[in-house]
């Protein structure tokens, strides 16, 4: 590549960056209003039922009015998305205080989860549960999703979404069991050590591209055969030292024994 074309590339990069900033800025203003104005989605009965469920199942840690305690953070303003994510992935109610609440079979059914979300949403504005349109990936660009995924998610969740370790025993879980809604909510609310990807840093269209890519990771067959957990060279190394070398050593011993 000649030096002029490099310079030209840099210039175009700058233009793209500026354009991107402008577009996301405008987009953000439009989007945040829809995302946070959704408390009205819930009925008063739902909110009341949610309050009741909350006081039975969550208040020991989060406080009677969700104001927080030494056992759990305040939930005021975390939004319906956070509740839906935490409860639908079975993370909440937390079984025992631990490094990190693991994904498990949810304790509440869909209606109860909606009620809990309604109650927490009524306490203060926060991200709403994404709608079906939010999750519609028909127009999303798969390859762009791959780039976004590798830029924003792979450093914690690994290139194939199989998860990875973080510091001090924390971990980014595998994404193989997450539903599109949970993915979207995870990005909106940034559970635990995961950063929040609000609509300013990652516009909805880009979120949908990521959903499409993760869905590809979840469903596409592995072109090269057995994927060994898609964890990179470590499992490949383990494989060569056990199965590979093991097989050849067995043959060597067999040949050695055969002739003697």
């Amino acid at each position, binding site marked *: *590549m000649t030096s002029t074309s490099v310079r030209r590339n840099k210039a175009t990069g700058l233009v793209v960056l500026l354009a991107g900033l402008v577009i996301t800025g405008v987009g953000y203003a439009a989007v945040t209003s829809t995302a946070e104005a959704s408390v009205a989605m819930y009925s008063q009965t739902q909110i009341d039922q949610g309050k009741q469920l909350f006081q039975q199942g969550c208040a020991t840690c989060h406080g009677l009015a969700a104001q927080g305690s030494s056992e759990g953070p305040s939930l005021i303003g975390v939004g319906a998305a956070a509740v839906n994510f935490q409860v639908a992935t079975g993370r909440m109610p937390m079984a025992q205080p631990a490094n990190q609440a693991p994904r498990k079979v949810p304790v509440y059914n869909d209606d109860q989860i909606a009620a809990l979300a309604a109650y927490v949403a009524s306490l203060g504005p926060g991200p709403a549960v994404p709608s079906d349109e939010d999750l519609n990936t028909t127009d999303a*660009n*798969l*390859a*762009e999703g*791959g*780039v976004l995924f*590798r*830029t924003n998610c*792979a*450093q*914690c*969740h*690994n*290139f*194939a979404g*199989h*998860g*990875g*370790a*973080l*510091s*001090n*025993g924390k*971990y*980014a879980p595998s994404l193989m069991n997450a539903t599109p809604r949970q993915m979207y909510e995870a990005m909106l609310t940034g559970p635990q050590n995961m950063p929040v990807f609000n609509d300013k840093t990652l516009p909805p269209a880009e979120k949908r591209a990521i959903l499409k*890519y993760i869905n*590809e990771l979840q469903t*596409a067959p*592995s*072109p*090269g*055969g*057995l*994927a*060994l957990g*898609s*964890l*990179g*060279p*470590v*499992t*490949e*190394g383990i*494989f*060569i*030292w056990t*199965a*590979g*070398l093991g*097989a*050849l050593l067995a*043959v*060597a*011993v067999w*040949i*050695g*024994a055969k*002739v*003697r």
Partner: protein
Amino acid sequence: MSTVVDGVGKAIGRADDRAPISSLLKDNLRKVFPDHWSFMLGEIALYSFIILLLTGVYLTIWYQPSMQEVVYHGSYQPLVGIPMSEAYNSALHISFDVRGGLLIRQIHHWAALFFMAAMVVHMFRIFFTGAFRKPREFNWVIGGSMILIGLLEGFAGYSLPDDLLSGVGVRIVAGIIESIPVVGTYLLFFLFGGQYPGHDFIPRLYTFHVLLVPGILLASVGLHLVLIFYHKHTQYPGPGRTNDNVVGFPLFPVYTAKAGGFFFIVFGVTVLMAAFVTINPIWAYGPYVPDQVTAGSQPDWYIGFVDGALRAFPNWESENFLGHTWSWNILIPCVLMPGILVALLLSYPFLEAWITGDTREHHLLDRPRNAATRTALGAMAITFYGILVINGANDIVAQAFNLSINQLTWFTRIGVFVFPPLVFIATRRFCLGLQRRDRDLLMHGRESGQILRLPHGEFIEIHTPISDDEKAVILAKRDIAPIEAPPATDENGIATPGLRAKKWRAKLSNAYFGENVKRPTLAEIEAAEHHHHDEVAHEIDVLHEAGAPIPSELTD
């Protein structure tokens, strides 16, 4: 027909008069190769290397060593429309649009892992049996160098596809080069043709990977084999095997047939693995982009120990020390540590010979127990290396076993100093225990586990003598006396030159042989046998007198 054959025969005869190939062949084809499974480890490495050459040539047909930016339009959907280097584009093309391309790529990479693993295991065999001793020291040096060169070659190959993992690897290596004091930055600019990453590195790496290093390796392998041929093969101790003969099968046809068969097995296993198990899914990593990284970014296993050391090393740095910045956190684990390791590896035969003072030629292998200190040193080195390899995978280990990376780091920092010496001590004691057991076997035979109660109430255990084959194996042990420290002055009162070094040598030599259990002399064994005979005769007498039945074990 027969005239053709005659003609060919005559032609061969005429050619043979000039270049005496047939007599050369006759001599060499009758060369004898001893037989043991552990002698086939080197063959695995050799065959993997051949597989690498063959598949590598196939890959060169389509691979484009260029960092020029192109947009992907191949058949792997999740990357269509993405800008990437031509190198990555061509590696994807090989994987998805060349017939058999993915299979060949996977064979090439699995064979690379096999190549390195087999060389390492082969080295273990050489080390623990003392096969590196005179006259084979130079072949040890060639072997050790091939591991080092293979490691660099593997790294170069791993970097060629220019995927995300490759790029991160190259980035780290660039950092390592920069950490070299004073010349680091210049070296980096020299190697990369300017700033990292630049556009020159991949093409240069390509020449290195397909031309320079395979050439060096091919020459080294050739020399290695010629030397094996020239020195003849070593053998394990056993009946009829001495330091001056070789017991085994002729090279032709027995050995060649077996070796040829084994080549196809190695090839078959590699192809099966490549057909069913993914290696280096470059499409999933995506193209290298400097601001991206994935969890589980690891090198191939053979470089893991350097990565492990880097991950464990504390973050030490001195700014402006002697006018330069010193990144101890990279320099020590990635330059000094591997440098020292390689130096020790290559010089071990000479170090050991200096310490033992053993200058004889050895064609009979040591049983690892009989070289207790060497065996313990080897176990210690493997422990050290192993801990670093595991730490190189610390995030995967943490994820798999629900551990904390931070604790693993501390475990490594402490363990790498604590465990190797412990393993040394334990291995050495274990070996000495085995030596003692061998001595007992020679002197008293094997404990049969049968207890006999003599009429006067004494209990004795019946010992059965060991077989002649077993005896031959144990008797092959040669004890060497440790080197004595010289007197400070000779008989004329003149100070011994280099006294300090000689004293050190004597100290090391004593430590090396220290508690070695002496093999009993033949006279001692004979005496013990007589004694045993007398004892048995006495027991029979006692039983006889008491009118008790005499067990058959005593009369055999």
